């Protein structure tokens, strides 16, 4: 497959270089850039009924980086992720993971923690984790081994055979995170991962995310916690009304907003909205 792709790319370069030498250079740059990007979103638009939720959104996520997708409630963060993962069909645009639209078993090892938390409540912790592990391509033994190791790490080792509805909300959330990281994914997409966690468990979760960063995983985080963003993220995008209001490294974004903290930037971007609403009123 790799050989075929390389040959194909080489042939395309040759054709373009012969026909239009200038275009060829641009094409090479674009291709190299897309090879570096694990997520590429171009001109994405999404409409529900008559409501335009996302308007011409473009950004990419580099392989191995931790990327923050920020914005207030209803700004289009979760919609973007759902469209990226094929749960929603985009109204317009191109959303690619590793150069192609996402499909289950399509090559990228994905770990996704959705905003809507839920599990098979009547099943035991270990049965549920092993099931998802197997769906991700692990053998039954591997899935069991990895699940038990995770449970030990999050201090739920004694709950392996407990039914999920017997666990607290926070414990269930840990299990869901465990399922997300099963199979050592190369791309982790976490939608508000620390929602509902106390400070101790939040620290534990951050450690787990950092571990995956160190192993070279790309992490996309949707969060409202600016402290987490500053601690973990390499680059961010700030959405408002389905449009990017800020995009780049944290330093670049802060520079653009006259050195303000991320908290202040967030407030100033959404504060404008409040002011606009007040003006309209």
């Amino acid at each position: 497959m790799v050989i075929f792709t390389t040959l194909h790319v080489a042939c395309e370069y040759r054709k373009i270089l012969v026909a239009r030498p200038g275009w060829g250079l641009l094409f090479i740059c674009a291709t190299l850039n897309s090879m570096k990007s694990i997520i590429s979103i171009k001109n994405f638009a999404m409409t529900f009924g008559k409501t335009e939720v996302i308007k011409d959104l473009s950004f990419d996520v580099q392989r191995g980086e931790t990327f923050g997708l920020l914005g207030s409630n209803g700004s289009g963060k979760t919609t973007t992720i759902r469209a990226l993962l094929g749960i929603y069909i985009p109204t317009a645009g191109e959303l690619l993971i590793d150069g192609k639209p996402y499909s289950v078993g399509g090559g990228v090892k994905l770990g996704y923690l959705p905003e809507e938390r839920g599990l098979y409540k009547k099943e035991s912790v270990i049965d549920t984790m092993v099931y998802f592990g197997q769906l991700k391509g692990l053998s039954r033994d591997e899935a069991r081994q990895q699940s038990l190791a995770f449970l030990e790490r999050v201090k739920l080792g004694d709950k392996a055979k407990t039914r999920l509805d017997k666990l607290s909300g926070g414990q269930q959330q840990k299990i869901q995170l465990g399922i997300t990281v099963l199979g050592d994914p190369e791309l982790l997409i976490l939608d508000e991962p620390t929602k509902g966690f106390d400070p101790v468990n939040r620290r534990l979760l951050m450690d787990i995310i950092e571990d995956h960063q160190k192993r070279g995983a790309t992490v996309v985080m949707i969060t409202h916690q600016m402290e987490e963003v500053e601690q973990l993220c390499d680059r961010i995008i700030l959405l408002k009304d389905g449009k990017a209001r800020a995009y780049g490294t944290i330093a670049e974004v802060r520079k653009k907003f006259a050195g303000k903290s991320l908290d202040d930037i967030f407030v100033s971007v959404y504060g404008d909205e409040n002011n606009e609403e007040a003006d309209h009123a």
Partner: protein
Amino acid sequence: MHNLRTVMRFEIIRTLKKKAFWIMAFGFPVMISFIFGIVIMSNVSTEQAAKDLEKQKFSIQVTDDSHLIKSELLTAFGGTSATSKSAAIDAVKSGSLDAYFYYPANLTDGQIEVYAKDVGIFDNGRYTGVAKALLSASVESSVDANTKTIVRDSTKGKVITYRNGVEFDPAQQMILPGLFLVLFYLLIAFFGNQMLTSTTEEKENRVIEMLLTTVEARTLIIGKIYSLIILAMVQGMIIIVPAITGYFLFRDRLNLPDLDLSSLPVDPLRIAAAAVIFIASFLLFTGIMVAIGAAVPTAKEASGFIGIIMMLIFGPLYAVSLFISAPDSPLVRFLTLFPFTAPIPMLLRNAVGNLELWETLAGILILIVSAIVIMLIAVRIFRYGALEYTRKLSLREIFGRS
């Protein structure tokens, strides 16, 4: 489809672990066993009561104006002839005589009069039993065996019918293909809810978003349908095995007809057709239930749809006589070939033997194509209705997406 086995295994094991499945699975056989148990107990107690009656000895006097009672039988019953009706009644009243029976001259218009000492509401009936038994035994002793058989209405008839010059018994012929009709009815009645909740559960538990990024919707739905079929087979065995075992163990006690399996006609074509119709019908019904489950946010909200589907599928049962007596009528043809009503008419008419070959083939084709189309729609609904946790998906939303 590489996750199909994983999905099936998970779905089957978790269903088998549910108490509700076993309660439902054994509910029918237990209920039937309970009813049969009552019948057996009733039969046993009746037999016992008759035996007890034979053993009971109490003083009887009889006045026989019918001249049917045999004196030797009266003696055997421990009775004597009364001198007068009034004296015997007085003796009963005084307690010196247990019972007095008066047989009138004309038994057609008159009635046997029984005067007896009270022995309680349940035991007072024994006097009438003895009076009737004495009369029957006396009458039977005076006639030959043939007359006795006629009087008891236990004469047997044998009918031999022919179709196309070959001996053909329609009642026996329909037993084996008809079993599929019974099985279909029982499985739908006992398994419909399981089919529905198999897809609503993921929505109600909010686990669907995580699932859809891990396994293809098509694999998940097909895995669920296959596992439902396997579970239905388990359910079917739970119904059939005790029924067959019970038949052979309790046939005599329940007075069930003696079925000679060796002489049961086997028409391989009709049995094969019944099996294919059964499978296609079951797939269609499963697909419909899965689709409805995928379209609604919770199982509770599916009741309206389920009612319509049940009416369509089981409604034709009300026209059973029409399917047998007027198989060529346009209504029967329509109900046979319209996919949502087809299962019962097809299975029934195939069992009866009036389903023509072209109807069999066309009906099976319609059922299979409909089942496939419904399943594809179920996948589509599941795929796009997955995140509709609080509202039903409209038809425009299901089919309007590219």
